[in-house]
């Protein structure tokens, strides 16, 4: 990081020959601040672990509570998911998210030919619940939320599996194919979501202002990947997205 402090900065003081005195003090301050920061973090960690021990049942059974807990861990650099040999493993969160990740991957693969490898997190959750998939977290069967699924997908991502989450409008979706979806593609999917139905290339042109080649390029990829299906009706060509359409069905 480059600092420019102007005349009153270290550089200026250096010119005045006061560097050594000042910089020693600066080092002292830095060290003290760092030390006290570390002390604070340590204290917070202790508080966090006490919290985890006291509330481990709630963490296991209540997705909302679990997420509050995880959001407290993050700023402290504590990751209960990956820390294996530490005492965080008593929470068994690593196992839970690992199991969930496997199930999420299974669902995505199963539906891939139908939706081209993109589906909403909500639909994944629905499928898992319909299948009656249960997980044990710290010896309790737990409910799992969309946030849990997103964390599980992050795990998959780290394994380099091509899985990732994207946000289209307000909807969070998981992409399980390595296809590069750029902003143009996302905008088209977004439009399909807004329309809640089939879209035509003309509609895309009208809304985005792109020329027809650009629209075609985006649409062709989505069609080729199986993320969009073609609907010929009364001389017009509509494009529908199974992943988006699923969300419009009554849950």
């Amino acid at each position: 990081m480059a600092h420019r402090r102007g005349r009153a900065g270290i550089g200026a003081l250096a010119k005045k020959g006061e560097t050594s005195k000042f910089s020693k003090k600066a080092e002292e301050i830095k060290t003290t601040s760092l030390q006290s920061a570390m002390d604070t973090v340590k204290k917070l960690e202790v508080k966090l672990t006490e919290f985890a021990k006291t509330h481990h049942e709630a963490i296991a059974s209540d997705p909302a509570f679990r997420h509050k807990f995880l959001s407290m861990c993050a700023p402290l650099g504590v990751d209960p998911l990956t820390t294996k040999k530490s005492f965080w493993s008593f929470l068994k969160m690593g196992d839970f998210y690992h199991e969930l990740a496997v199930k999420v991957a299974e669902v995505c693969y199963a539906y891939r030919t139908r939706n081209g490898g993109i589906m909403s997190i909500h639909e994944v959750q629905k499928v898992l619940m319909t299948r009656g998939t249960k997980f044990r977290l710290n010896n309790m069967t737990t409910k799992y939320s969309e946030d849990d699924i997103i964390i599980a997908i992050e795990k998959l991502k780290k394994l380099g599996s091509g899985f990732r989450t994207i946000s289209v409008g307000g909807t969070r979706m998981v992409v399980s194919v390595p296809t590069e979806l750029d902003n143009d593609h996302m905008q088209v999917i977004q439009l399909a979501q807004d329309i809640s139905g089939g879209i035509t290339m003309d509609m895309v042109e009208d809304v985005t202002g792109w020329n027809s080649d650009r629209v075609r390029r985006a649409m062709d990829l989505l069609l080729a990947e199986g993320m969009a299906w073609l609907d010929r009706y009364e001389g017009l060509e509509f494009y529908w997205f199974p992943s988006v359409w699923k969300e419009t069905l009554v849950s």
Partner: protein
Amino acid sequence: MPKQFEYPEIFSFAPFFTIQPVLATREKQMGLWRELILSYHTSLKIKTLRVHDCPLWKNKEIGRELNSEAINTIMEDFVESGHGEWEDQTKTRCRILWRKPEQLASDIYDWADTNGFINSVCTVYELHSGEDINGMSFEGADEELLRRALLILEKQGKCTMFKGETSEEDGIKFF
């Protein structure tokens, strides 16, 4: 009592009624059509599909229907899969083979083996309506279809057929 058929979700998806240009998607689509045709006719116990008035070709609720080219594509694919065969040259009626004759043949032979019918005789009637065949895939099967299956077994040397006083009493000896 004819029971109501529960249409699959895909039946309400407009593009289902357009033959997909992308091959992988089209294959998925054809698979879904085969499933739909088979499960519809099987659950309502309809033995023949009449191409010109099959209710599966349109969904009024979403305002979509297959055009005649699409119907042909789907029917050709269906027959090719082995689950249907044309009753006439003009391809207007298709017999639904909810189990392919080959599958029925092996089901029958397995049953015969399990139930000690090897080297013994049973009648065609017993095969589709007898007491021992509850829950078997060939229970209540079309006699025509059964005979086809038995012919396959004969060719494989796994049985032999002989005439009874009535066609129902025609006998089968399993080897």
